[in-house]
């Protein structure tokens, strides 16, 4: 080993505490990068393979009813390569002896079809036989949630008659990886499922003899989806077409996309944050090292070492310093990635996953870590290269301090000299202080943005379940009933109050843009349901016109005062233009709220109840569910308690894990910044501080001067980070906003407090460690040497 290389390793060993904290930051960045990249690659690979294998359709449409001959006309549309038609419909189903129905979407599956689109992958059992009218294949999530396996059976209401259906298989299709029950906030696999069965029984059940009400399409290569959609929609107008859409609007694909997309965002954002901080820490540490080794550098240059060789020496130092972190990070990242892939593959029900040992991920992590190291070391290496030997061997010119304007006008005369020391040192290296503050702000913001979701979800749940939905049960009717149909429900023992809810599905159109939504009318002075905006305040329905979700207006490109064209989807086709009289910032679904008379104008006849809201005596839930579930007009019952449980299950657990991880990462970041910053400050000021100790300053007083500088950075960085965290939270809320819900931008005091505690705690930990070094300052040595 050459002497210069030996020096390299000795320096690394001397700086080991700093290398350790640096390694943790690098490891965190590399780990998150590798884990996310592995996960995203495996999921995207798995998704692509799965979609290909199951021939996932490009376009989807449902309609009222069209004769089978229409299929040929659909297939003839320019750009359509293939079309499969189906029969689909929702029915109430009873599992075992449960008295309340689950909602089952029946979809026809032709066992004779060769290579159909959206093929069902049978995971257990077999496909239904064509001439058996009682065999079904259940969607895996529903089967698992209800513990149903091939050989079991359930009952469903078909054509008004209770029919026994035998489960012959359990399968999964890309179309139904994620299912959301109509109008629900979170998936509920126990109460909403999909079942495939032979076409014949469905033809009779839904009066579709020789007809279909659902179609899926494969696009020809190079075809434009939008153009094809327009043609499909035009063709299906007479058949009650509900508007074709592509994968981007397909519920299951959209959910999968959104989830992978969120991972993607983290893949970029988190590692970038850590590697920026790592680069900064390296910059500070190496900057000090070069300063301290000026004379050595000068001497080496005098001996004939050239600039490039010495520059490389310091760059190598930086690279070696990040190696342990990179190795640790890649190893941890592969482990974490493996765990995440296993988890997500299960969660997303992808039957296959891409490769987990991802060479690209490892190479990528190494590249970004090396990049960060080079960025961090660049300034120091450049200083080494530029240093002239003669100049280097002289003591460095003393830094030139200036008195601030305040000091000159006398304000600072009263300030303690120790405080002035702190302030002037900060002013001497403002870039470093600024970077420290920024890095601490990052750490704080990371903590805030990681943990605010819990509070925001609590707020959303509070708004929804405490302020808006005050009913205990919602009873959905199979078909609209007279508005006084509450009578029979109210008669059930245990029902305290019942209110009918009228909702009509419409296509809301503004210019060329449209969206399918429900127009809902609540009874005047409804006790059980209120409309709540993002602040949690109840909003009364505008007396005339439409009150529209702001997100829906935004989608349509409309504003308050514009007229929306509403087309009914079910029943008699009608088209009415009504003005938007108010916009509402609501959190749940895309909604149009009206008063009853307005609804009557839309439907053209007396509004009918589509569901009923019940308040039930304490403890009477099960009894009421059983009685109401047995009523033939009832298609489904959902309970508020169940909805809360589903939501917590879907959102709560993963949030908590994420919170802990992010808080830990934030702490690592804060420790690295504070510890290294103060370590370097200590090296630079050891002489001053030891002089002060000689002059009678106590250890505590000297520590205060050194740590005061870091304290000020923390004091500036943390509030800044809280603000930045709020900005990030706003971005996350906007990024997560889906049609189904929008989180309120609520950052609770507890969230802020947690972030402050994590970062300040990490700073205190670093300070305690430094205090030990300060206590060991050599008082005698300092008097003998000139700096």
């Amino acid at each position: 080993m050459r002497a210069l290389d030996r020096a390299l390793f000795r320096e690394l060993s001397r700086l080991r505490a700093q290398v350790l904290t640096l390694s943790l930051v690098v490891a965190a960045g590399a780990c998150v990068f590798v884990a996310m990249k592995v996960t995203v690659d495996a999921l995207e690979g798995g998704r692509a393979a799965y979609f290909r294998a199951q021939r996932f359709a490009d376009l989807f449409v449902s309609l009222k009813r069209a004769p089978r001959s229409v299929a040929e006309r659909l297939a003839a549309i320019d750009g359509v390569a293939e079309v499969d038609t189906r029969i689909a419909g929702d029915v109430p189903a009873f599992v075992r002896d449960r008295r309340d129905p689950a909602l089952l979407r029946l979809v026809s599956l032709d066992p004779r079809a060769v290579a159909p689109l959206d093929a069902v992958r049978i995971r257990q059992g077999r496909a239904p036989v064509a001439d058996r009218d009682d065999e079904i294949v259940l969607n895996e999530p529903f089967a698992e949630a209800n513990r149903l396996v091939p050989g079991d059976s359930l009952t469903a209401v078909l054509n008004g008659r209770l029919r026994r259906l035998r489960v012959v298989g359990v399968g999964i299709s890309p179309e139904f990886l994620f299912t959301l029950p109509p109008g629900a906030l979170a998936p509920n696999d126990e109460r909403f499922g999909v079942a495939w069965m032979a076409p014949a029984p469905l033809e009779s059940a839904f009066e579709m003899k020789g007809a279909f009400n659902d179609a899926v399409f494969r696009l020809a290569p190079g075809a434009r989806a939008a153009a094809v959609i327009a043609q499909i929609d035009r063709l299906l107008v007479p058949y009650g077409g509900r508007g074709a859409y592509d994968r981007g609007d397909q519920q299951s694909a959209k959910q999968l996309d959104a989830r992978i997309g969120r991972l993607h965002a983290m893949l970029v954002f988190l590692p970038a944050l850590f590697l920026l901080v790592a680069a900064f820490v390296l910059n500070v540490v190496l900057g000090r090292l070069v300063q301290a080794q000026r004379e050595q550098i000068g001497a080496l240059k005098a001996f004939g070492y050239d600039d490039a060789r010495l520059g490389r020496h310091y760059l190598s130092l930086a690279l070696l310093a990040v190696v342990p972190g990179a190795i640790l990070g890649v190893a941890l990242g592969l482990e974490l990635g493996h765990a995440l892939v296993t988890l997500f593959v299960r969660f997303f029900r992808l039957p296959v996953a891409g490769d987990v040992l991802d060479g690209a991920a490892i190479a990528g992590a190494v590249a970004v870590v090396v990049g960060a190291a080079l960025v961090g070391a660049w300034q120091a290496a450049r200083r080494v290269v530029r240093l002239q030997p003669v100049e280097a061997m002289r003591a460095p010119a003393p830094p030139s301090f200036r008195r601030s304007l305040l000091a000159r006008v006398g304000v600072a005369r009263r300030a303690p000299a120790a405080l002035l020391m702190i302030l002037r040192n900060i002013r001497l290296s403002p870039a470093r202080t600024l970077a420290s503050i920024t890095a601490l702000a990052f750490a704080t913001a990371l903590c805030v943005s990681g943990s605010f979701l819990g509070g925001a979800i609590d707020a959303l749940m509070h708004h929804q379940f405490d302020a808006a939905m005050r009913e205990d049960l919602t009873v959905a009717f199979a078909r609209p009933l007279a508005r006084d149909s509450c009578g029979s429900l109210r008669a059930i023992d245990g029902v305290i109050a019942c209110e009918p809810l009228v909702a009509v599905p419409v296509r809301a159109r503004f210019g060329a843009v449209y969206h399918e939504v429900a127009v809902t009318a609540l009874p005047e002075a409804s006790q059980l349901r209120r409309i709540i905006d993002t602040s949690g305040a109840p909003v009364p329905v505008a007396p005339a016109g439409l009150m529209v979700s702001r997100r829906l207006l935004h989608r349509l490109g409309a504003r308050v005062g514009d007229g929306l064209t509403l087309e009914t989807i079910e029943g008699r086709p009608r088209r009415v233009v009504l003005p938007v009289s108010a916009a509402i910032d609501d959190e749940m679904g895309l909604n149009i709220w009206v008063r009853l008379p307005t609804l009557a104008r839309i439907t053209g006849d007396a509004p009918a109840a589509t569901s009923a809201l019940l308040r039930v005596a304490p403890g009477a839930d099960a009894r009421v569910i059983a009685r109401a579930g047995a009523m033939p007009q009832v298609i489904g019952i959902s309970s508020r308690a169940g909805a809360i449980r589903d939501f917590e299950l879907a959102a709560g657990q993963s949030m908590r894990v994420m919170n802990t991880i992010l808080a830990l990462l934030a702490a690592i970041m804060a420790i690295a910044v504070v510890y290294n910053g103060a370590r370097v400050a200590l090296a630079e000021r050891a002489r001053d501080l030891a002089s002060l100790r000689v002059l009678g300053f106590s250890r505590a007083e000297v520590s205060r001067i050194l740590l005061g500088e870091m304290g000020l950075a923390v004091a500036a960085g943390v509030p800044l980070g809280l603000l930045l965290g709020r900005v990030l939270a706003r971005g996350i809320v906007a990024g997560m906003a889906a049609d189904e819900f929008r989180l309120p931008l609520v950052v609770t005091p507890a969230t802020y407090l947690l972030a402050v505690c994590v970062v300040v705690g990490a700073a205190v930990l670093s300070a305690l460690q430094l205090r030990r070094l300060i206590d060991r300052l050599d008082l005698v040595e300092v008097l003998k040497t000139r700096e």
Partner: protein
Amino acid sequence: MGKAILEASALTKRYDMGELQVAALQGVDLTLAPGELVVLLGPSGSGKSTLLNILGGLDSPTSGTLRFGDVDLTRADDATLTRYRRRDVGFVFQFYNLIPSLTAEENVALITDIAERPMRPAEALALVGLDDRRDHFPSQLSGGQQQRVAIARAIAKRPTLLFCDEPTGALDFATGRLVLEVIERINRELGAATCIITHNASIAGMGDRVVSFRDGRVAEARQNGARQPASELTW
């Protein structure tokens, strides 16, 4: 000469250097009386700096005793020594050890901020003849001026003891003599017992007493009949 304020007797100091033991002090007796000016003379390595470090509360002796008034400093803990340095001791070092980020006045204020009955920083600077330089940073001052700021810093607390370690070591002759004149005047006007360490025998004349060191021992101690004014020193 009054009763001794600082009494050291039979001080030894040994450093363990691996297998080797180095004796820096070998049984040194020394007293300082209020207002007295003592010159400790000796070549480098003779143990005088070690003695000063122990007298000043920066280091502890291996054996022997050290008393300041009624306080036994021999085995004092860090807090006691810190208090002693803070309240009673003024230090002047060869390399000034000023804080570069503070102006002359602020360097003095650093000490007056924590002292019990200090003079005003401006007053201390006036005593060393630097009242017109109080807003200058160390880097804007000459070596002599920096050393005078260091003296102002040492005396601003009105110390009982003033220790000067090679105060002229880094200065040219004219500037060094000027600094010694300041120390002499401070000793007279404030009455602090003053101890100057030097290897420069020409300075010996300005002390009430001269203690010569060799090999960690007091080689000779003599009383000067009359102090020679610092302004008359030459080397």
